[in-house]
Structure formats: C-alpha cells, structure tokens
C-alpha cells in the first residue's frame, strides 16, 4: 500500500473554477487516488477522518448545499442501495438548508431537461448556475459519468464539489472519499453533528 501523503509534485490543486473551457483532468495533473482509509482534499491525500471533517465544515458553511444522488442510490436495486439512500437522507436532514436534486440516469433529454429539478452529466453546470449552488455532493453516480460531470462543474462554475465514492474515489472532486457505503455515510453524519455542536458551543462562549 502506498503511504503517499501530499499534493502532486507540480503543486496542482483541485480547486473551484471556473478553471477553463476544457479543464485538465486531475489525473493528468498528477493527482492520484487515495488508498484505503484515506481521502483527497483538493488533490492532497489525507486520512479519511480529516476529509470527513472538511466535508462537514464545507456543508455547514454553505449558503446553498446540495446533494446530487445518482442511479446507484436513487433506485432500490439492492438492500445496500436502500440502506445507503436512507443514510444519505438522514445526513441531508442534519445540514441546514441542504436540498436534493437527482440524477436518475444519464440520458441526454430532448428537447431539454429541466436543470432546476434534475441534474444530468451532460450539462451539470446548468443545474449549478440556475440553482445558485455553492457546495454540492455527488454520490451513487457511475465512475465515468461522475468524472465527466465533476470536470464540467470545475470547468465552468465556482461550486465546491464533494464526491462520495463506493469504489476508489474521484480525483476530479475537491473532496473525495473512497469505499463509502451506508456505514461511512453515517460516520459523516456523526461528524456533521459533532462539528455543528462545536460551532454552537463556540457561539455560546463568544
């Protein structure tokens, strides 16, 4: 197992855009996927817990946080999918103002989808723009479509992207975690609750 911790040698960071009409893929810029127990923050390999903490902070600081669930969790195709869907909805309930816009499949729609009510990998930027989303979380989107959507979002918007992946992670997101199933989602929810409590007690002290 790699013990690599840190940014790519060239210092490239996966940060909110707009980066370029065709932003380079993070992999081409040297970002590598995390190993077990690790995550990525802006291309830098960090321990999983650190990434969870940052996810909690980002979601709780957002003006308009949004969950983008993909087909792997929207459809009840297995008990695991249903459990993960439930855990995600519990997580959303813990983040003030967080809403959900689904990506039920990957079809380009004719004459055009309504980007306000659904997100599509072919034009995710429209959903971000029209709904004015500053932090979003992708989950349950098949790898190649997630990579495509994340790159388009980074290319054309200033939205902060988080990708919870059931496989190896998504280097094109600003924060990513790998091996995320229902249990890991519940861990994120616990982290959100803890960070929220910390913020409340800080306010009290002030």
């Amino acid at each position, binding site marked *: 197992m790699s013990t690599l911790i840190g940014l790519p040698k060239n210092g490239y960071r996966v940060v909110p855009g707009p980066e370029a009409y065709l932003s380079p893929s993070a992999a081409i810029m040297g970002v590598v996927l995390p190993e077990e127990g690790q995550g990525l923050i802006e291309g830098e390999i960090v321990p999983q817990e650190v990434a969870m903490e940052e996810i909690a902070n980002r979601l709780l600081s957002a003006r308009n946080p949004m969950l983008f669930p993909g087909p792997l969790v*929207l*459809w009840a195709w297995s008990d695991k999918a249903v459990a993960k869907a439930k855990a995600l909805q519990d997580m959303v309930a813990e983040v003030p103002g967080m809403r959900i816009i*689904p990506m039920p499949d990957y*079809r380009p729609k*004719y004459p055009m989808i309504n980007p306000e009510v659904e997100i599509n990998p072919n034009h995710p930027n429209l959903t971000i723009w029209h709904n004015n989303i500053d932090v979003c979380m992708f989950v349950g989107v098949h790898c190649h479509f997630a990579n495509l959507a994340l790159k388009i979002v980074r290319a054309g918007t200033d939205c902060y992207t988080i990708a919870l992946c059931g496989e190896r992670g998504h280097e094109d997101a600003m924060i990513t975690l790998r091996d995320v199933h229902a249990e890991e989602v519940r861990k994120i929810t616990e982290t959100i609750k803890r960070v929220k409590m910390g913020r409340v007690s800080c306010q009290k002290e002030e």
Partner: protein
Amino acid sequence: MEALKISPGFEKVMPQEYLELVEDGPYGRGLGVKDLGTFKELIEVHPLCAGCALGLSIRLILASLPNPENTVIVGTTGCNAILMPQVAIHNIHCLFGNQSAVATGLKRALRLRYPNTHKDVVVMAGDGGVVDIGLAPTMHSWFRREQFTTIMLDNEGYSNTGGQESGMTRQGVVVNMAPLGKKFPKVPLHEVAKVAGCAYVATATPARARRLGQMVRRAILVAREIGPAYVQIFCPCSTNYKFPPAESLKRAKETEITEYMVPEAKEWIERIEKGPKAEEVSNEA
C-alpha cells in the same frame, strides 16, 4: 418490478417523468403495439425529421419488446443514433459497423452473469451500418449462430450524412450525393440471412404496425431459444428522397412483408402463442 423501485424517501425528489415510468411504464407488463396510447412509453418525443418512418418504426419496436427491462439495444451511427440515447432503456452506441461484434460479446457476457434470466440483446442500425460497413460482423454473427436479434432500419440510403447510396438503395435511384444513380440492385439481405444461419427472418413495414410488432416480438423470442433472428424494416426517408412527410406511410406500404422460420423456431413460436397468455412471456431462462 423489483429493479425499478425508487429507494424509499427519494420519490419526493424524482422528476415526474421517472415517477410515471415506474408507475405506468411498460416494464414487466407484457404490453405490445396494441396497447400504445395507454401507458408511458420508453420514448415520447424525438428530434428526427417530421414524418420520419424510421422514428415511427423505433416507437413500434420499443413497444414490442417482450421484456424491455431486460433488453439492451446495440446501435450504431445513423439517424437512429440521434434518438436512441434518449430512450428509457439500456442502449449502447458502437463504432459505425461494429454493432454485431459488440452485441456478440455483450450477449455472451450477460448469459454468464445472469444464467437464470433471459437478457435480450437487439442490434438496431441503419442499412448502411448493417449491409455495408457492418456486413462482416453481421454475417459472422449469423454464421456463429449468436443468439441475438438484428433489426435493420432500411431507409435505402445513408440519410444521416445527407444522402449517399447504400447497398439497399434500389437500382437506378439517384440520391443527393450519388448523381449517377445506383448501378446494381438492392442487396437481398433477408435472403442472405436465411442461408447464413438465421432461425427467423422477416421483412416488415411500420405501415402495418401490429404485424411489425408481432415480427419483432417473434424474432426476439426465437433469438432467446433457437438462434439468430433478422428483421428488415422499410423506413422511407422523406428528407433524402424528397417527398412530403405526410406520404411516408403510403410509401412504407410499397414493400413486401415476408416471414421465414426454421422448423424449430416455428414450433417454439406456436407453443408460446398458443399459451394462455401469449403476451406475457416469462423471461426466466
């Protein structure tokens, strides 16, 4: 349908179209052409030309799939490829002409992965894709007796690229980009299919909608149990053949409807169609 349930709680964020597909779609219901207008179709609107007979044929084909939830359509470049990605069914777009090679691998893999369920693989492509550039993979899939259905959407030319001749263009016809006129006759691919190993071969037209639906259905059921199936559908193209779109169906009638089955296929079809619920064919392997 087990596979088409929404995860509890997410129903409230699903767009209306998906709620309708789950509640009123054709999945697992054994519907057919006769039921059109009574259920939520797999495609509703499309960007093909007004009066396109190919678009109508695809609508009829989609309504005729015995088990749409367990069907994968394999297509290739051409007018149909503009419509197909929008259909609420699994479909794969291949390199031009490669569709039967991709379908071969897909069908074999699905059989290994899902040994207890019939996963129907249906190749659907234009005449250029099937009879010209894709002829070798098409024929070899028949020689090898690969168990999937090939449907040719025969508009007698290359329409998507502005009107070049294909093997299916009739002799003497002048299309936009072939001013000298076709020098040799239309390729009799349905005849070739019979000697190449197809267990079911039909020529159809969208002008006879129910018959087309019956043929597509029979082809897919034969491909499941007996061997390769081929359906050739005549789809006149008003844009490249320069006739008023309203004439498409009249023109579509100008073809011969034929049906051929090897004896085992005939026996199998008779057995299914004599059953108590001919429309509801189980897809358990």
